[in-house]
């Protein structure tokens, strides 16, 4: 007695059912084909390795909704709401396939109807329906009344909230009217049978009830297949695409940058939308416009025009706009320029590559590599960059480091003579290298930390050597600023130096060097064991080779450097080190660990001028420090240290706040009284 069996104005229900389905599915498939073909315009990329591992990750992220639950904080529990909606709607989707598709379209209703299976399933659906409705109501209140920063009232959001609510209501109505029309007395499913009971009591004629039942049933069906047509034409495309996006996300470093092959090419980096890789384009489809990247971006939060969300959405729009012409093999002259119209240069140069966007994103969009590909095009192909960037990159090219007007020389200068450190000469070999990094060697304030580090290492009896003036910058600022070929030259040079001296293990005080040598040098032929000094010191303390006996009476707070924390997951070791100091207490900032707020120095921004008229990123972060009431901010990165010193100087709070490198605190805690 499924409505599909009936005949309407002489046309069999089956015919109507399947014609409607064919039309809807056709529109659905047509759109998906278009989107797939557009994605294939992107460059090849191998994200098909370790498929089993990838599938496992995807299932763990999607099925228990870890992708959303991991974004839940005390202030933002939307992730829970989404999980409920996802699980609820998954059940509904299954029910549509079984009870509309199989029972209806395939005529198996007599087999399925009124079975225990159906009753149980419908009962679960009623409960799921209540959960989903609750989640919808809360979602609507958040988006339209509370209006948190990251959510904008949007038409697409309203449509989906209304549609899903409609489906929840109609789902109950279908059961209610169906039971009432066929005089089925039941107490399960609870809502449907309650409605049926009420309807039976109204004394409506069986024919009326049947008529309404059929109407509601077909309305329900049309809305569902309409949904299918709507999804790939809206941001709800993420429903279909995001599991694939998670499947194909990078298994290695979160920001996957590839060396540029050495063939003569007309253009480098991404100047046109099809210069991106296919996964970059898939990212654009996956965006659900949740706004988490936008609400956590230090550039955005300090007043810059850059918003990671807008970059993704603008690129998506650009792809859809220029797509048809590109597929037809034509290049359009009237279309907007990607760099300039779609994403402005101002936005491109504001990114500190801190990784907050990617950390927050539930669907694994890779924002940062797109920014760097755009920078590669500007620097390598167009030769366009802010003057401050050009000066820094010029220095990288000419002097082998980004610091001009240096205040101190590399380690074959005056101070090593007191210290008796092994400086590697031609032909020397060493197992452990203390890689100082250009900042630690050349900038006055950071040299103090370097000296402290050598003293600590010696006190702990660590056998190490340094490269002295054979050390050039690791190349990180060049790579982040898009100057890839210079980075390649430096990487190859450094790798050769390491190999020449037989280096096996590298200890560094700079998270950028740590990240670059550990995660990026392997693609240039250099794989070494790389350790950040906080890890080494934590180990030495654990082994008893370093004793921190001296009390530190300062009130400390620890700032997680982006390249140590988010990029490499090193959160615990620096804290363990500080906690092993007697009486030391760390006052954690609200935005700490993976929510740490960037100091503003990464991505080449240590040298590149920030957008005039906006607050400087480090000044925003210093406010976080001041809120803790600490008198000392401890960090484990030379850029962060500089940024805090600048902020302290700028706000004239030298008397109330000090900035220290972790190693300086360690040395102070080692001193014998």
């Amino acid at each position, binding site marked *: 007695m499924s409505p599909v069996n009936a005949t309407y104005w002489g046309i069999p229900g089956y015919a109507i059912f399947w014609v409607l389905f064919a039309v809807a599915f056709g529109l659905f498939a047509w759109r998906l084909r278009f989107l797939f073909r557009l994605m294939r315009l992107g460059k090849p990329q191998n994200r098909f390795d370790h498929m089993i591992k990838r599938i496992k990750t995807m299932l763990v992220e999607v099925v228990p909704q870890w992708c959303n639950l991991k974004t839940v904080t005390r202030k933002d529990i939307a992730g829970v709401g989404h999980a409920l909606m996802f699980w609820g709607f998954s059940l509904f989707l299954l029910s549509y396939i079984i009870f509309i598709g199989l029972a209806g379209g395939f005529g198996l209703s007599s087999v399925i109807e009124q079975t225990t299976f159906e009753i149980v399933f419908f009962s679960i659906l009623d409960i799921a329906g209540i959960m989903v409705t609750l989640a919808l109501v809360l979602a609507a209140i958040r988006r339209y009344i509370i209006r948190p920063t990251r959510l904008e009232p949007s038409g697409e959001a309203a449509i989906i909230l209304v549609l899903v609510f409609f489906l929840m209501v109609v789902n109950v109505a279908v059961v209610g009217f169906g039971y009432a029309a066929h005089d089925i007395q039941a107490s399960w499913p609870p809502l449907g049978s309650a409605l049926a009971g009420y309807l039976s009591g109204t004394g409506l004629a069986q024919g009326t009830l049947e008529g309404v039942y059929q109407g509601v049933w077909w309305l329900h069906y049309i809305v569902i297949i309409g949904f299918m047509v709507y999804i790939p034409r809206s941001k709800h495309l993420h429903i279909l695409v995001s599991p694939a996006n998670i499947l194909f996300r990078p298994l290695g470093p979160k920001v996957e940058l590839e060396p540029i092959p050495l063939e003569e090419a007309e253009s480098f980096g991404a100047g046109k939308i099809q210069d991106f890789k296919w996964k970059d384009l898939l990212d654009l489809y996956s965006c659900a416009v949740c706004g988490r990247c936008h609400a956590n971006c230090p550039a955005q939060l300090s007043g810059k025009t850059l918003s990671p969300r807008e970059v993704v959405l603008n690129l998506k729009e650009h792809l859809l706009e220029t797509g048809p012409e590109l597929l037809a093999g034509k290049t359009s002259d009237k279309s907007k320029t990607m760099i300039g119209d779609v994403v402005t240069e101002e936005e491109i140069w504001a990114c500190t590559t801190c990784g907050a966007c990617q950390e927050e994103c539930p669907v694994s969009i890779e924002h940062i590599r797109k920014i760097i590909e755009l920078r590669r095009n500007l620097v390598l192909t167009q030769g366009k960059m802010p003057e401050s960037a050009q000066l820094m990159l010029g220095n990288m090219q000419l002097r082998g480091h980004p610091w001009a007007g240096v205040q101190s020389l590399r380690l074959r200068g005056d101070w090593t003579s007191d210290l008796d450190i092994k400086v590697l000469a031609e032909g020397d070999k060493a197992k452990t290298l203390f890689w100082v990094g250009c900042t630690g060697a050349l900038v006055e304030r950071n040299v103090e930390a370097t000296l402290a580090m050598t003293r600590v290492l010696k006190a702990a009896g660590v056998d190490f050597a340094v490269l*002295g003036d054979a050390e050039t910058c690791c190349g990180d600022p060049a790579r982040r600023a898009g100057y890839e070929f210079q980075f390649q030259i430096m990487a190859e040079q450094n790798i050769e130096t390491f190999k020449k001296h037989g280096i096996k293990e590298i200890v560094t005080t700079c998270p950028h060097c740590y990240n670059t040598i550990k995660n990026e040098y392997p693609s240039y032929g250099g794989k070494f064991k790389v350790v950040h000094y906080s890890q080494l010191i934590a180990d030495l303390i654990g082994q008893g080779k370093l004793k921190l006996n001296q009390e530190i009476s300062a009130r400390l707070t620890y700032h997680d450097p982006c390249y140590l924390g988010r990029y490499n997951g090193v959160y615990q070791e620096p804290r363990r080190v500080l906690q092993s100091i007697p009486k030391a207490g760390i006052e954690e900032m609200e935005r700490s660990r993976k929510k740490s707020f960037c100091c503003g120095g990464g991505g080449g921004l240590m040298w590149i001028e920030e957008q005039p008229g906006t607050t400087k990123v480090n000044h925003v972060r210093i406010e976080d420090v001041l809120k803790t009431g600490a008198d000392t901010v401890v960090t484990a990165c030379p850029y962060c240290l500089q940024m805090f010193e600048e902020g302290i100087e700028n706000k004239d709070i030298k008397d109330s706040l000090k900035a220290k490198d972790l190693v300086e605190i360690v040395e102070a805690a080692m001193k014998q009284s």
Partner: protein
Amino acid sequence: MNIIVCVKQVIDPEIPPVKFKIDPEKKEVVPPPGVPPVISVFDERAVEAACRLKDKQGGTITVISLGPEKASEVVKHSIAMGADEGYVLNDAAFEGLDSFGIAYVLSKAIAKIGAYDLVLCGRQSADWGSGQVGSILAEILGIPVVTLACDIEAADKNIKVKRVVKDGYEMVEAPLPSLVTVSSELGLPRLPAGMRIMIAARKQVPVWKAADIGAEASELDKAHVEITKLSVPTRKTECEMIPGDSPDQAAENLAAKLAELL
């Protein structure tokens, strides 16, 4: 337009002053250990000027550098910016030459290179700063020289040069071939981009000896300049506070004092 650019490798001017040392006996500057030398600032602008002309007119840029063998680095840097070819002029006989000697050697190298439309030099070197080589070279080559250029434009068979003068600019038109010395007002030199940086890094730069360019000992031995003393000036700072009952009065007193001193 075929352009020849003369570039020099110098001690990095960006070293902290305390690291700058001289040997007063030998009357030489002692290179600070561990600091790589760089291309002379004005010469880099000369290469930039050449590149700008090449962008508009086409042609070739050849770079020559008189210096140690390591000077190949500045030649490579110029190639990365946009030069096509480059040579290092290195010989024991070239050590300790004065501006006349240097100009002579460069002229021999230019003769070996062959035909050219324009020779560019920096207005002065970023180490000694004599500012003479360009003009002497032009004299030897028998071509006009325009100094202190901040802009060069090609105009038919001539060039239009914008010169920096004490209180502004001067426009000079000169026929080709000519020699122009370039000042830093030309602007920021381009960042070596694209593949050029890799091409340059892998390039082998030929070294020319005295014999290769036919530089004669008789000319090289002529010294026109003798350094009698080399010293680092001692800086003395004095601070005199100019009094005044009010800011206006202080300003008047200051102005009077300045007029007196100047």
